[in-house]
């Protein structure tokens, strides 16, 4: 040996003296080599010293498995010193996963049956700490015998060994149940506390044991009474409380026995009330007992007065300067808030105070409890408190707090305006932490509150102007400004201060949102669409908007690009439809299906809602049809569709609106005949579904003093056309502007050739028959192009 083996204290000193991890490792490796050598040599007297060193090293995290066998040898030795260290080693190095552990079963058996008390104590301790199921089965009988030995020292340990055995092998309950009743009569506190632990374990594992042990409730109550009534005992008192450990164990067992059992509960009610009122609460020991009492009272069917007392005790705990006590109070109140809601409500102010606690675990509990206490009568004040908390709370609580406030607002909002204000405030304070559907909820809410549109848009505008970083808020604000921009600009909000906003300011703000690097792609989408909607809401010209829209036509983000391109198309080709398309949204049904229309994007709540009966829907639905056609006709939206402008420079009207109202027809009419008061006028319609078709309505009107009768109109067209005359409405036009005759002529012009038509009229007027033939040449270009 190069260096002599160190004694334990020296070894410890050296390890502590090591300056680096490497140095420490060196010292330990050297020493372990000595230890291994010593074990090999089988030096019996020093073995316990070597093992002790090894155990120290093991605690520092170094491997020590080669000491396992030595533990066995030490345990088997007759010397108490050896056994002490050997059993300690077994508890630290051997566990049920090691194969070696079963080998100590025999030694334990011997020690239990033949050893002196200290030795028996060691054996029982080891068995209770690391005894596996097999060991427990083997040694159950030994332990049972020890329960009846006269020495309290052994009995108290045997009882707890039995607890461990039952945990490992539940069937052993049968052996250990019978002795309990007798053990309960002991006066030794150690045996008592062990017995009560054993009974508790038996009852928790097997409901069948409950009726058996309910019989001892009076006995338990008596033991508790003696403890509580007894004066100071030097041996067992802690801060003036007699054996709080034992009291707490008894109270817990009473809880288990009294649960769902009226009779047992009744037997313990008085005692519980006494403990609850008489326990000194100045120190932790008393509060521990009181806490257990409260838990028991609320878990058993106790008198309502007692329950209120329990909740009040918890309320008092909330005012305690000791943080730990406040913590357990909040935890318990949270469990009680459902069953004893009104009792807990009384302590709401104190709970709210706890929100301000700097300790995060306390404020979290306080938050959960506060949210559970919100109801319709306290919603306003509670929301105020919670909003205050939201501003200053730690980051990990923000999401919970924000969603809690929003949920409470949804359930109990007294007015819509309050609701909108509340959501807005939450979004302003903690926008990044709200759930995804908050935006949708808020837009729906605002959309539905028509009377608040002006108010909402003003508030949101102000909020947006102040801060464009909170994404949910920006999204909602953008949507609102787009929808209700006209209300914003007219300054028509009565509920808040009148706001004078210039169009340029609004556009600048939306542009800022669009360009900001803080904005998410979805937010940008909102902003772009809002700008587009504003093009129909503002009085001034649209140049700025058109500029922006066309710039974004080449944006890298596909969603924005698509939108910009479509909006561009709206400006250029379908400008006449723009107002109708960008009309105000109809009210969205709550939770109704949200359809995507014509690739407008997911966030836009466009809702065609075909089931609705609102009359404004029809043109919208038809427009959407047109849009479908639009996209279908132009193929990929990516490259902008080619515009074909006629040489004349006027916009080409490819599509016309269906003539549900004739005033929508843009093609000018034509007067073709006027003689002595009889006029023939032609009006034209080009139905969109059939581009080659022209519908002409010929109207014959009479301003003269004499009726026109036997009126017949005939028409002829060049060979490339097809003509169909429909039945006229009549053949008489009464004098002095009487009801005219109308007749529809259908002309098919597939070649788009210039239209020419000959008309032949025959009628009677002023007593004479008239025949006229003439050609109509100057048809408007729109009728045939």
């Amino acid at each position, binding site marked *: 040996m190069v260096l002599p083996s160190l004694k334990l204290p020296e070894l410890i000193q050296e390890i502590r003296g090591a300056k680096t991890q490497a140095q420490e490792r060196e010292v330990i490796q050297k020493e372990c080599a000595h230890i291994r050598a010593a074990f090999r040599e089988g030096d019996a007297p020093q073995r316990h010293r070597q093992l002790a060193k090894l155990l120290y090293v093991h605690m520092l*995290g170094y491997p020590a498995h080669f000491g396992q066998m030595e533990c066995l040898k030490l345990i088997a030795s007759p010397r108490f010193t050896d056994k*002490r260290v050997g059993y300690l080693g077994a508890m630290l190095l051997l566990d049920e996963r090691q194969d070696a552990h079963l080998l100590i079963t025999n030694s334990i058996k011997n020690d239990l049956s033949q050893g002196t008390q200290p030795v028996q104590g060691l054996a029982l301790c080891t068995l209770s*700490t690391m005894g596996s199921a097999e060991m427990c089965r083997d040694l159950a009988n030994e332990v049972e015998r020890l329960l009846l030995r006269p020495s309290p020292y052994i009995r108290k*340990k045997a009882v*707890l*060994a039995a607890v*461990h055995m039952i945990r490992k092998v539940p069937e052993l309950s049968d052996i250990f149940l019978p002795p309990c009743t007798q053990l309960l009569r002991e006066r030794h506190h*150690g045996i008592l506390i062990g017995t009560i632990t054993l009974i508790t374990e038996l009852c928790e594992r097997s409901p069948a044991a409950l009726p058996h042990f309910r019989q001892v409730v009076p006995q338990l109550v008596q033991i508790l009474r003696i403890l509580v009534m007894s004066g100071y005992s030097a041996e067992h008192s802690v801060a003036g409380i007699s054996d709080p450990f034992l009291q707490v164990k008894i109270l817990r067992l009473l809880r288990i026995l009294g649960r769902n059992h009226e009779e047992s509960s009744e037997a313990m009610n008085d005692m519980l009330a006494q403990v609850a009122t008489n326990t000194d609460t100045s120190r932790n020991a008393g509060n521990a007992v009181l806490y257990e009492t409260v838990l028991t009272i609320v878990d058993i069917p106790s008198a309502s007065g007692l329950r209120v007392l329990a909740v009040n005790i918890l309320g008092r705990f909330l005012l305690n300067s000791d943080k*730990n006590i406040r*913590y357990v109070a909040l935890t318990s109140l949270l469990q009680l808030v459902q069953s004893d809601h009104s009792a807990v409500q009384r302590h709401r102010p104190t709970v709210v105070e706890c929100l301000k606690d700097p300790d995060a675990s306390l404020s979290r509990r306080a938050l959960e409890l506060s949210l559970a206490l919100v109801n319709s009568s306290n919603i306003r004040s509670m929301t105020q408190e919670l909003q205050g908390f939201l501003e200053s709370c730690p980051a990990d609580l923000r999401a919970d707090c924000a969603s809690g406030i929003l949920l409470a607002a949804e359930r109990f909002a007294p007015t819509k305006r309050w609701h909108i204000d509340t959501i807005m405030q939450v979004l302003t304070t903690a926008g990044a932490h709200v759930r995804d559907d908050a935006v949708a909820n808020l837009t729906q809410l605002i959309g539905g509150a028509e009377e608040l549109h002006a108010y909402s848009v003003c508030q949101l505008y102000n909020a947006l102007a102040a801060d464009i970083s909170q994404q949910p808020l920006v999204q909602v604000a953008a949507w609102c400004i787009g929808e209700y921009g006209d209300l914003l600009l007219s300054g028509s909000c009565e509920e808040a201060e009148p706001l004078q906003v210039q169009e340029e300011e609004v556009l600048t703000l939306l542009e800022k949102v669009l360009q900001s690097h803080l904005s998410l792609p979805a937010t940008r989408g909102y902003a772009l669409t809002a700008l587009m909607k504003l093009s129909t809401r503002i009085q001034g010209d649209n140049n700025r908007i058109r500029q922006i829209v066309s710039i974004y036509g080449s944006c890298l983000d596909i969603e924005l690009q698509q939108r910009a391109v479509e909006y561009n198309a709206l400006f250029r080709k379908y400008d006449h439809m723009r107002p109708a398309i960008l009309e105000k949204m109809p009210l969205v049904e709550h939770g109704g299906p949200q359809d995507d229309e014509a690739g407008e994007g997911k966030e836009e709540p466009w809702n065609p809602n075909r089931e609705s009966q609102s009359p404004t829907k029809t043109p919208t639905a038809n427009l959407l049809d047109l849009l479908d056609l639009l996209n279908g006709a132009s193929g990929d939206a990516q490259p902008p569709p080619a515009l074909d402008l006629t040489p004349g420079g006027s916009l080409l009207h490819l599509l016309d609106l269906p003539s549900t109202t004739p005033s929508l027809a843009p093609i000018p009419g034509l007067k073709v005949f006027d003689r002595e008061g009889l006029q023939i006028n032609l009006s034209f319609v080009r139905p969109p579904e059939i581009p080659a078709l022209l519908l002409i309505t010929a109207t014959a009107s009479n301003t003269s003093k004499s009726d026109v009768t036997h009126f017949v109109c005939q028409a002829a067209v060049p060979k490339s056309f097809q003509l169909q005359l429909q039945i006229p409405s009549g053949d008489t036009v009464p004098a002095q502007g009487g009801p005219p005759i109308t007749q529809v002529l259908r002309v098919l012009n597939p070649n788009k050739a210039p239209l020419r038509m000959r008309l032949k009229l025959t009628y009677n007027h002023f007593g004479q028959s008239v025949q006229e033939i003439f050609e109509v040449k100057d048809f408007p270009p729109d009728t045939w192009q």
Partner: protein
Amino acid sequence: MQFMLLFSRQGKLRLQKWYVPLSDKEKKKITRELVQTVLARKPKMCSFLEWRDLKIVYKRYASLYFCCAIEDQDNELITLEIIHRYVELLDKYFGSVCELDIIFNFEKAYFILDEFLLGGEVQETSKKNVLKAIEQADLLQENQNEDWGGLSDDIL
């Protein structure tokens, strides 16, 4: 109680008592994580925290942290009392105990704990009885070492 750990402010383990069977690797992992969590707590925070599915009760005495893991239905406040009782026992035994005592006499710290708790439960609520038992055991050890005659069996 599932386990009790004693560690210094630098995170060095001074005592580990496990009342549930776990592999060495698992024990090391739990120890490492828990030590980190507890050391990160600010001084004014309360003594309880939730960790995995357990409740942790901890208290600092001078340079040592005493940390117990209890189950959901256990009473946290009485666990604080248990910790305090153990410290009192150590104090009585060593006479004004400090961390060094526990470092150099770690086996004794274990023996004292084993007279106070058994299988994770309180076995003796009288301070006097615990200390007496240790005393007797110590005497027995000494006497045997010095080859004295057998001592009487009864401790209590």
